[in-house]
């Protein structure tokens, strides 16, 4: 039997809900409860429909995480762009597949699709106050500590690479280091690192490939933000690198992750994190 918290998604749902409540209470996010409900409903219905089509039992944990992520990161004046984002997000899991895995992180592709295709939805990268940034960091760190078993080397590598690039740029330009610090103190960035790009279902399974994936995403995000001046560079970077993920996997093949599995880690991180217990279930379903 699996323990209650063996599945990191439960922890994610709790922390994302907590962040949302905090952001809402601190009035940092202008969230309409009706929109929120509509996004949850759309995501769950889409998941149920998709599961029905491929004749599997619907699990509502994933669509709930997607709905929470969308509510935290995407804004709109009306409900429909958010519902469309949720439908695209969940739909992509069933329709856009390669190597037996879905290509895109659901919330990520939902955001990118709506931002690229319409003007009706937008992200608000600058609207996280320091308090919420700190809360997001704590939540992310908590996730990391609790589930070091799962593949949370991704946020470390991503954030580390991104920070090196930002500080490198500041040093090259002769800028005060307050500038890269300001850029790193961004709640959306922290949320992206701990709750989006780290999704074990859409990161490569091999440890080396995963490190390259996270580092590559950071490099891409940096170029899109600072050389192409795209305010949503972070989200585009993940969508683009997800499309070439099969290449990483081809060089470094490994068994597909199932929720609750422990995973392999790059050697450098293994020193800090001892090996973990055996898989909670005997064999992967796929």
């Amino acid at each position: 039997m699996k323990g209650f918290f063996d599945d990191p998604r439960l922890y994610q749902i709790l922390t994302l809900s907590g962040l949302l409540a905090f952001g809402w209470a601190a009035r940092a996010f202008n969230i309409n409860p009706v929109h929120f409900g509509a996004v949850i409903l759309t995501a769950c219905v889409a998941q149920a429909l998709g599961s029905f089509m491929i004749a599997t039992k619907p699990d509502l944990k994933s669509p709930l995480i997607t709905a929470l992520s969308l509510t935290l990161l995407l804004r709109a004046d009306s409900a429909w762009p958010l519902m469309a984002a949720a439908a695209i997000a969940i739909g992509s899991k069933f329709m856009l597949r390669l190597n037996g895995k879905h290509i895109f992180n659901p919330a990520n592709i939902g955001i990118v699709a709506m931002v690229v295709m319409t003007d009706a939805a937008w992200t608000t990268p600058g609207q996280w106050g320091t308090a919420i940034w700190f809360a997001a960091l704590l939540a992310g760190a908590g996730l990391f500590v609790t589930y070091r078993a799962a593949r949370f080397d991704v946020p470390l590598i991503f954030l580390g690479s991104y920070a090196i690039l930002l500080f490198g740029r500041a040093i090259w330009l002769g800028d005060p280091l307050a500038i890269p610090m300001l850029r790193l103190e961004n709640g959306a960035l922290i949320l992206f690192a701990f709750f989006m790009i780290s999704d074990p279902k859409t990161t490569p399974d091999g440890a080396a490939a995963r490190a390259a994936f996270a580092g590559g995403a950071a490099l891409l995000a940096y170029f899109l933000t600072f050389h192409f001046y795209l305010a949503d560079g972070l989200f585009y970077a993940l969508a683009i690198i997800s499309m070439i993920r099969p290449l990483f996997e081809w060089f470094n093949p490994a068994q597909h992750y199932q929720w609750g599995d422990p995973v392999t880690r790059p050697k450098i991180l293994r020193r800090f994190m001892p090996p973990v217990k055996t898989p909670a279930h005997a064999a992967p379903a796929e």
Partner: protein
Amino acid sequence: MNRSLKKTLFAAASAIAAITVTGGAVAFCGFYVAKADTKLFNKASKVAIMRDEDRTVITMANDFQGDLAEFAMVIPVPVVLEEEQIHVTENAILDHLDAYTSPRLVEYFDEDPCVMYERREMMAMAAPAMDEVTVTGSKKDSLGVTIEAQYTVGEYDILILSAEQSDGLSTWLKQNGYKLPDGAEETLGSYIKQGTKFFVAKVNLEEQAQTNLKYLRPLQIAFESPKFMLPIRLGTLNADGKQELFVFTLTRKGRVETTNYRTVKLPSNMDVPVYIKSQFGDFYKSMFEQQVVKENERAVFLEYAWDMNWCDPCAADPLSQNELRELGVYWTGGDQPGILPRRPTPPAQDVFVTRLHVSYDAAHFPEDLMFKETGDRSNFQGRYVLRHPYKGDAKCDAAENYRAELPKRFEKEAQALANLTGWDIDDIREKMNDAGQSFEEPKKDSWWKRLWGTDDKEG
């Protein structure tokens, strides 16, 4: 059972209907009562930015007060500008934009509580003042610095410079008589490495004399660049203390916000004591300063976000198509004289205006302001409400209740004001008392008097 359920459903449905009705336009424009002092903020600059895709027009107001021969400003620009890309416009247009977007005071008069409520509205506005960031000097030549172009536009002599080294540029500027603040070299170096050019403007005294104006007109530049930003770093260097900046953006899709700093809505739609009417300027200034501190001095404030077709209440009429074209809104027709309507009419100009207000210094705003246009077209305005109590001699149960409620309402207003501005609450209460907003509970009739009534009421 079934009946009660039906009733509930009906009640719920009508509640939604009510929300929809009041959520729509309960629009009526008030009329103008007073204008607050326009010199509210010292060292403030006003900048209007038209932005559509990569197309950008920046209009910089110029409130330079000193000797015109001493005036000079250095602005980082993303590209080398041709002469046709530089323009001089009229102060009045920016002043109009400022007035149209200003926080406003709205006045309501309580009607006789014994009669049906009716409302009237008046308003006042506060317009801030501005001051351009300046570096003084004159010019010469050379030192690894390339003069890309040199023009005279209106009363300004303009140089477009590019440089390879920051020390070369700073030496060149110093040799040419520009006083550079400490730390300028590092900042210039950062801009140079990012491929930035420099726009240096000085006053051409002969041309200026020909304008017959006592002031300098706003300079405008038009260019295409993927960067949607406003350079503020050079301005933080020579400033003693904080600087005020008002940014007005004119866009097509919707509201503009900063991506590297929080954009926070200024508290709005509060009931404030009636004596504020004569001190609206002070109120706005104190409130703004208080909010800046509340947000740890790191926030940009949203003061207005509205479709340019209308306003409610209007602090000033919306800008005409000609004025908008002058500010760079190239997609409007222009040439149609007359005042635009104050109410929602068929969308004519497709212009969304955002007013941002920031009080900045290098410690809290190390990086330039980076902007982003969102799809948000919801309206926002800084609006503060005065509610004059009914002074007439009303005698009915409703009037008694109304009077009994007043002290509580005044107390709420006093607390809201103290909270918004950081002013002393006892001071506020005293001023409210002087203005006729008394906190004393009205004497209540005894219960038997209310039971059997008095002489002038029926028994």
